[in-house]
């Protein structure tokens, strides 16, 4: 899987328009900072654990990419047809960055699986770097995007996620 596909896949899986729906009315920048730190830490942890995890469940790296691609497609379909999430219920103040921004808005099963599959294929550092880009884009959208764009934007990115997820699946299928 190329780094480009991994990065674009993560950006689509993290769907910045979906994440922007969880923008809190109070202290959005603080919440974004907490979300960013928590998400990057989670990405590092998942990437580092990808090898032992896939070994434990007896999945090769190639098959892990198929699984990740399927998850990205599934979440893409969900994003196409559901409304963006709401900012509440949430933890208070900046801690909204943990819940619901980092989880479950940014860290969906698709993002988690794709980070891990990417780490198994390309290494921990490239996977974390790609995840950081996706997290950054998502949080930039959280801070900057206007509400009017969220619904249509989420659907369009969902469509993109379906296409990119399919490419990730094919990458895993045709791999050794």
């Amino acid at each position, binding site marked *: 899987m190329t780094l480009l596909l991994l990065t674009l896949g993560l950006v689509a899986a993290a769907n910045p328009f979906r994440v922007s729906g969880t923008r809190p009315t109070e202290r959005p920048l603080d919440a974004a900072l907490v979300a960013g730190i928590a998400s990057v830490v989670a990405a590092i942890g998942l990437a580092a654990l990808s090898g032992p995890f896939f070994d434990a469940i007896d999945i090769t790296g190639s098959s892990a990419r198929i699984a990740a691609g399927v*998850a990205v497609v599934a979440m893409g379909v969900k994003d196409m047809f559901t409304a963006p999430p709401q900012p*509440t219920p949430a933890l208070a103040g900046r801690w909204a960055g943990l819940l*619901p921004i980092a*989880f479950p808005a940014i860290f969906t099963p698709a993002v988690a699986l794709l980070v891990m599959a990417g780490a198994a294929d390309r290494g921990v550092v490239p996977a974390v770097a790609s995840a950081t880009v996706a997290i950054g884009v998502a949080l930039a959208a959280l801070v900057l995007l206007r509400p009017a764009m969220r619904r249509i934007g989420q659907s369009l990115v969902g469509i993109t996620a379906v296409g990119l997820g399919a490419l990730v699946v094919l990458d895993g299928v045709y791999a050794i």
Partner: protein
Amino acid sequence: MVPPLLRRLLHALGGWVLVFGLTAVVVHPEGCRVPSTAELDRTATRAVDWFGANIDDAGDFTYRYDRDRSVDEGGYSDTRHAGVMWSLWQAESAGIDGAGEIAERAFARIERLLVDTPLGPALGTGSQAPTGAIGLLVAALDERRAATGLTDHDELLRGLGQTLAAVVNRDGSVSASIDVSSGVHSGRSPFFTGEILWALSRLHLTFPDDGLAEPARRIRHYLVTDRDRVEEHWPPVSDHWGAYAFETMDRWPDPPATSAADDEWLDRQLGLFGLQVRYESQRQGGITRLTRGPIALAAGVGTLGEGLGNHLLWLDRNGQRTSDRGDLIARADCAAALLVDRQITPEQASTDAEPARTMGAWFRLGDTQMDDQQHALSAVLLLRQYRATLASSEATS
């Protein structure tokens, strides 16, 4: 009443369970392991023993046997007979006792089948002689020559080589059959291209002045650039015979350079082999019978091991695809392990009505066919050979 935040969390976790459940349906655990060399030796020996127990005085093997009904189902394939002879000579070269003797007995059938055509000697009983059978017979007799030093079949080998060269078309495609009386050749087969390329490649090493390099190079070019597109085989062919050919051609004094087209073809082939091994390794019985179907024929799994083993040999020799090496070895180990684990053991055979028909064989849905034993034997022998090559190069470095 569940607090709203907790409800949101639980809803999200429910989504995770659903998505992971969906991916679990699509991707199953792959039951792979690394078989020991002792297991490979034992598997190969038992397969050879099966051939020894299932050849009659006319040199014919038990072709197809139903374990559940204890019935010899009859039928035969001359191409597969030649393929079995190749595997037995391969085993003889690898030091498996008795393999060569069984292969010599099997030659009795070949003697009955040999026929003269306007193109040269061929094998067949009807009006059409399959060219793939000639290819595999060449491989078998050439390996015999290498294993024993005997040159008594040289005239036949050279004649078969000329027959094969004559069925290579201008574009490098090969005809699947020869009209015995007219010499007209026609048809295509998904496997004969690789078989004939391999045979000609071997003969060029053995008889370098027989002019067989040129048709071999022509076939190779067709194989990597046109065959899949022109012949439109579906599903795509994972070409283990082509892998044998690439490994052999790599040992030519003047091997063809690996072209961009070769690389593209190799990408597709290695991916096909790997995918099939991964898929097969997910067939673990139980619920996977619903999602993955029954286990594949041992012949099919064996061809995966043959393809991977051959590609590993020549790629390693040249230091190519080093980044793929780990995955290739893992898939080759996996294919061999599946074969080791699925072979009928003496203990399992002891409760059968005819243990000699079953011990050392592989069965699918109650049936075995002699090419199951052929391809499985060759696959484990190739992995053994690769490991020996690795050990040898590590010792000298």
